[in-house]
Structures are given as C-alpha cells and as structure tokens.
C-alpha cells in the first residue's frame, strides 16, 4: 500500500482497536488517552504533514535484508524471553504481589480517592508524571524552534481565501460543530475534575480541550482562531502549567516535607493529598492543552506558508 493517506487512516483504525483492547484489559485510563491521542491528535498531525509532503510513497525498499535480519534476531530473542513470563492473567505473578498490593489496599486511606491509577500517577509516582509534562513541554518548544515562522501580514486575504473554502462549502457541518464545540470543551472540564473518581485526568482533558479548539480552527480558519488564542498566550500557558506543577513540589519543600509530599500542604494529610492532586492535574491540563494547540498551530501555519508561497509563485508566472 503506497498511498500514505490510506496508511494513516488504517493507523487510526489500529489505534481505535488497540484502545478497545485496553478497555477489555481493564486499562480504562489508558484507553481514554490512546483514543484521544492515537485516533485524534496523531492522525490529524500526520494528515497535515502528508498534505505538505505528498501522498505517494516510493515503493522501492532499501536494506530489506538488513531489516529482515534485525527483525528476526530481535523477534527470536523476545520469543525466547517469553517462555518464562508468568502466564496471562495469573494472579500469582510477581507484579501482582510485590509493590502493587499497597496501592490497591492502602491508597484509599493514604490518598483518599477511588481511582487508583490517578493516585499512583499523581502521588506515589508524581515525579514520573512531572517528567511526562516536561517531555510534552520539550516537544512543544522543539517544534516551535523548528517550525515557527515570522508573520507575513501582506497577502493574508489570499491565505484566508484558501482557508475559508471549507466552511463556506459546508454549512451543515459548521452549524453542527457550533453546537458541539461548547459541549466538547465542557466535557473536557468534566474529565479534568472527575479524574479522581472515574477514568480521566489532566492529560486526557487537555487533549480533548485541544481537540475542540483544533476542530474550531479547522472549520473557521486559523486566522480567526489565532485572534482568540494568540501564540504568545499559548506559550505562557504552557510554561505556567509546568511551573504550577513544579511549585506544588516546591511549596511542599517549604512546608518541611519532601518534594511532592502533599501530606504537608494542609493540616489534614488526606485533604492535602486532594489539594495536591487537584493542583498538579490542573498543571498537566494547562500544559497539555496549550502544547497540543501549539503543535497543531505551528504545523498548520507552516502549511499556510507553503500555500502562500505557491500562490505567490503562480502570480509571478502569470
């Protein structure tokens, strides 16, 4: 299959499928994230890039033998390794008996929220999550460093003309989206604050919120969206998210605890945990939303620039 468009679409299907698999394996939070990220954001980004780079793939393979050897060797090694793995679903394998029992049995007393995934994520292993936020922040900054363009104010109307072709043609979808977008944003907020009790949390909420805004910008044009959410504003929000997360840790340092020790935030340890988790989830939500929007904007802006150059070239030719 050498049509990249089709490949990306199949990748979207694959992502949905693996998300359903995650639900069947009880990993609801992961399924949530995979659906929002794999089927939503990453498919969109790939599509944007394909429109800029071309749809066809050169069918010629290079180094197929090297690839085959590497693959056979690695696969063989892994296959060899699987023979001593505890069997699927067996309750007596080490991972269910060593560290995890404390999370399952004591987290409700120590942290006080029913979703164990959230309590492990945001309290026991809060630093991993901090790292995760920094990873996504890094990606945002890196993409900005690679793609950000200085603005060409002239000829803006031409870009707008290319851009707006979508919503002039599709009245129905515009109206439906107008109904849906507020709902999407509201739902994102619900996911953000309901993460303690059900599946969800800052990351998922951030992605959904960003998806809502991306939908808006796809239908109503980038320039209009940029008027509401400007690039500097987005950058500040992404920085503020990381800083909010980190400063929860710093405050707990000042209160005399270890870094990310939420017990010392308030006099009641469990209430302190609640507050800490709420704040850091907010930080995660801020950063993820803004970075996702930032990434999409940079990609789409670059695409506009290309179109702009194309138009310009055509003008010169004629």
């Amino acid at each position, binding site marked *: 299959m050498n049509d990249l468009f089709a*490949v990306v679409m199949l990748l979207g299907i*694959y*992502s949905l499928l*693996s998300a359903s*698999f*995650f639900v069947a*394996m*009880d*990993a*609801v*939070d*992961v399924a949530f*994230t995979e659906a929002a*990220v*794999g089927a939503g*954001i990453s498919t969109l*980004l*790939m599509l944007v*890039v394909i429109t800029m*780079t*071309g749809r066809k*793939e*050169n069918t010629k*393979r*290079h*180094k197929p033998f090297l*690839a*085959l050897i*590497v*693959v056979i060797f*690695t*696969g063989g090694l*892994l*296959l060899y390794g699987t023979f001593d*793995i505890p*069997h*699927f*679903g*067996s309750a007596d*394998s080490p*991972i269910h008996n060593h560290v995890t029992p404390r*999370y399952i049995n004591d987290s409700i007393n120590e942290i006080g929220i*029913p979703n*164990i*995934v959230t309590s*492990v994520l945001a309290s026991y*292993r809060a630093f*991993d999550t901090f790292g*995760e936020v920094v*990873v*996504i922040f890094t*990606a945002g900054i890196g*993409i900005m460093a*690679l*793609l950000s363009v200085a603005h060409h104010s002239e000829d803006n109307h031409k870009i707008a003309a290319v851009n707006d072709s979508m919503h002039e043609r599709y009245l129905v979808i515009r109206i439906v989206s107008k109904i849906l977008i507020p709902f999407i944003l509201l739902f994102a907020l619900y996911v953000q604050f309901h993460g303690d009790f059900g*599946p969800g949390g800052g*990351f998922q909420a951030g992605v959904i919120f960003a998806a809502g805004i991306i939908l808006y910008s796809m239908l109503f044009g980038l320039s209009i969206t940029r008027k509401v959410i400007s690039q500097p504003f987005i950058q500040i929000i992404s920085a503020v998210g990381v800083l909010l997360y980190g400063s929860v840790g710093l405050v707990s340092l000042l209160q005399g605890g270890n870094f990310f020790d939420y017990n010392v935030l308030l006099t009641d340890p469990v209430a302190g945990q609640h507050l800490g988790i709420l704040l850091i989830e907010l930080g995660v939500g801020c950063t993820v939303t803004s970075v996702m929007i930032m*990434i999409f904007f940079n*990609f789409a802006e*670059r695409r506009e620039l290309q179109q702009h150059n194309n138009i310009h070239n055509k003008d010169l030719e004629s």
Partner: protein
Amino acid sequence: MITGLFNNWIVIVLMMSGLYIVIAHGNLIKKLIGLSLFQTSVFILYISMAKVEGGTAPILAENIKELSNPLPHVLILTAIVVGISTTALGLALVIRIKEAYGSIEEEDIQILDNLPQSKTQKKIMDGEQ
C-alpha cells in the same frame, strides 16, 4: 501453555512489523508510522501483563474485590505521552526536510547530500518544476 503466552506473541509480531517498517521503508512518514507501531506494541505488552483473571478496572467501588494492576497503566500513560511527543517532533522534522531537500525519500536525501551544494540546488529546482 499456549493460551498463557499468546498475548506476548501477538505483541512480538506487531513489534517486529513496526521495526521492519522503520528500517526497510525509505519514506520518512512511513518510518514514523512504523515507529509509532513499534511503541504501541510495547504499550500492549505492558497492559496485558497488568490483567488479572476476574479482575476489573482499578477504580475502587463497592462490591468489587479483584482489581487489575494499576502500576503498568500509569507507566503506559506516561509512555503514550512520550510517544506522541516523539511522533510530533519527527513530523516537524519531516516538514523541514521536505522544504530543504524537496523530497522525503531516504534515498533521494542521501543522493542529494553526496552531491556538491551547487548541483543539489539545481536538482531541487528541476524537481519542483
């Protein structure tokens, strides 16, 4: 025996197809797709190890006793974020490569790199016309 390890073998097949795509395909976007396939298969490896027979999702509720292991879920949440970050950065690089070289096929890029700069410029111009 077979049923107990079946999940791992599926993972291996997925993982190896991802790896093969990364190495053997010359198209950069295809490479990134292979890479994300490779990463996703690792997610499946982790998630399937967390499952306990008869357990349900690790959210406490009344009258639920067996829970699956929450720790791998946490790890994979982090890994998914890492995966999308890498993919996004890679795509940004692909855009820049397309602009700089005029192609996103590995072979073309290698040819263009080995030519002297002046010739390459011309070649790109030719290619675009």
